[in-house]
């Protein structure tokens, strides 16, 4: 087991238990979230309604008329102790166009960090990320593994909505978006891939815990892939990890 100590049990009301492995963004804590998530899903404990893995905790929604808190905490302790370590089993390679048309903040980010825009692209597309959690809106995928050199503070003010598919950085993390929304993060590119699409058999692409890499593409390739993605095709590639 990872050595981040015993989990802390917190209540989010009488029908949700938060199993917290840390209070910071920490890959070791996230590993334990994933291990417990997988183990809880496998054992199908009666009364457990839904599991929500986040960066540092697992939220367990439960029916307190079926399983009470004490029994749930006991079960989780046992399951957690026995849970096998998990590691990513697949990697998504997601096309990303860093052209300033889409990465409209890339120059500003580069200026803040004292590097060239090309260096920002090289760092961002050279890193291997992990899907840490989904949040905010369907398919908004928060990524751990952003290179330290790309750490920028949030915008001072919220900017107007970015297009769907925008790739952003901020708060020490990466983000793939699915809906046009106002944001305090920085826009550095755009993917033609849809992380969430009701027009496709596979509604959501990556699972929490999957590895993510970005492959730079030019504007022409973006538009070609975007047309294919719009027809419901998956344009990212997925490989099984050894």
């Amino acid at each position, binding site marked *: 087991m990872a050595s981040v100590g015993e989990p802390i049990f*917190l209540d989010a009301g009488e029908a949700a238990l938060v199993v917290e492995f840390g*209070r910071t963004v920490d890959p070791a804590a996230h590993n334990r979230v994933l291990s417990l998530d997988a183990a809880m899903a496998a054992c199908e404990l009666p009364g457990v309604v839904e599991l929500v893995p986040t960066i540092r905790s697992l939220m367990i929604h439960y029916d307190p008329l079926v399983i009470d808190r004490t029994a749930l905490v006991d079960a989780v302790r046992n399951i957690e102790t026995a849970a096998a370590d998990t590691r990513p089993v697949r990697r998504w390679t997601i096309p990303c166009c860093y052209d300033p048309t889409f990465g409209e903040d890339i120059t500003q980010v580069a200026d803040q960090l004292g590097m060239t825009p090309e260096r920002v692209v090289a760092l961002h597309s050279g890193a291997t990320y992990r899907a840490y*959690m*989904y949040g905010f809106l369907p398919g908004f995928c928060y990524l751990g593994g952003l290179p330290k050199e790309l750490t920028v503070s949030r915008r001072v003010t919220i900017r107007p909505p970015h297009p769907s598919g925008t790739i952003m950085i901020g708060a020490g993390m990466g983000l793939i978006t699915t809906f046009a929304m106002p944001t305090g993060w920085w826009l550095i590119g755009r993917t033609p891939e849809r992380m969430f699409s009701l027009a496709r058999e596979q509604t959501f692409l990556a699972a929490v815990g999957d590895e993510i890499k970005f492959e730079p593409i030019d504007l022409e390739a973006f538009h070609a892939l975007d047309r294919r993605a719009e027809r419901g095709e998956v344009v990212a590639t997925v490989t099984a990890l050894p």
Partner: protein
Amino acid sequence: MSAALKTVSAGPGVTLQDAGRHGYLRYGVTAAGPMDRLAMATANRAVGAAPGATAIEVSLGGIELVAEGATLPLAIVGGAFDVSIDGHKLPPAVRLALTPGARLRIRAGADGAWCYVAVGGRIDVPPVLGSNATHTRSSLGGIDGRALATGDVLPVVDIGPCEGGAAGLTAPWLARSDDPIRMILGPQDDYFSREQIERFCRERWTISHRSDRMAYFLEGPQIAPANGLNIVSDGIVMGAIQVLGDGRPMVLMADRQVTGGYPKIATVIGPDQGRLAQMRPGSSVRFATTAIEQAVAARRAERAILDAAIEAVPLVRHPSDDVLLESNLISGVTAGSGNVDAD
């Protein structure tokens, strides 16, 4: 002609809801579902439908409906809204048969912020990820992911029997008390000092006019977290009381986002969420801490209510005016007795 409910007019914020879109929180999908779960379940039960069947959630904006193609059995339950058919007043908790040509009108009334129109039959719109619950922020569910609008046609299938004329529904559990809204501390109550938590419970808060299905903002003093304004995002449940960076609390409701990065001082217990939801902007509200055992007991009481049959008392036309009356009705709807939420 196939049967349908047609929207003659709809104010803002009227949506289709069901028990919610469950199982996709891990992909960022909000469950949505009713603001007042007990009221929607009561309406559905009154027409023989499952507690979480698809129903119309009516906001303070109100709605006017007509039946097309068949007479439709309906139940209306929720806040004390003004309900009428072709100008004839009905009680706010009522079961009726809506005949084609008759116009059902529901308007904000004396009290309450939401009411539900349940159908004896099934509102047949295509489910999205297994649910008809509307979440307008992500454009999922209901009719094209949006609020109902004038001219919308809701097909109704599997129509159940219409049991006689209009009947008042006896649902004393929907006469909500003015007791403080009960909450369980956490998950981030340790971000607040003891004095701040005591103050939160002592204050009388005002529900802001900015409130909607996503969140009820609370106006009052600032309760800035003592231990920092930001946390690493974690899961959010309905009822979570999140305190923003400026020290202003908000209660996250049915359309909340699934994760958030502000500390949550406490969580409103499930059985009190509907009572809070029915408070209108401008209402004052107080909060009190409770224990999980109390919350679970209140849930159990709620379950027992929904397991029992709902009493319906036929209405008679009052000879002197257009009001349909029934002797037990007023006490049934407005009396404070039999409140299941009491400790």
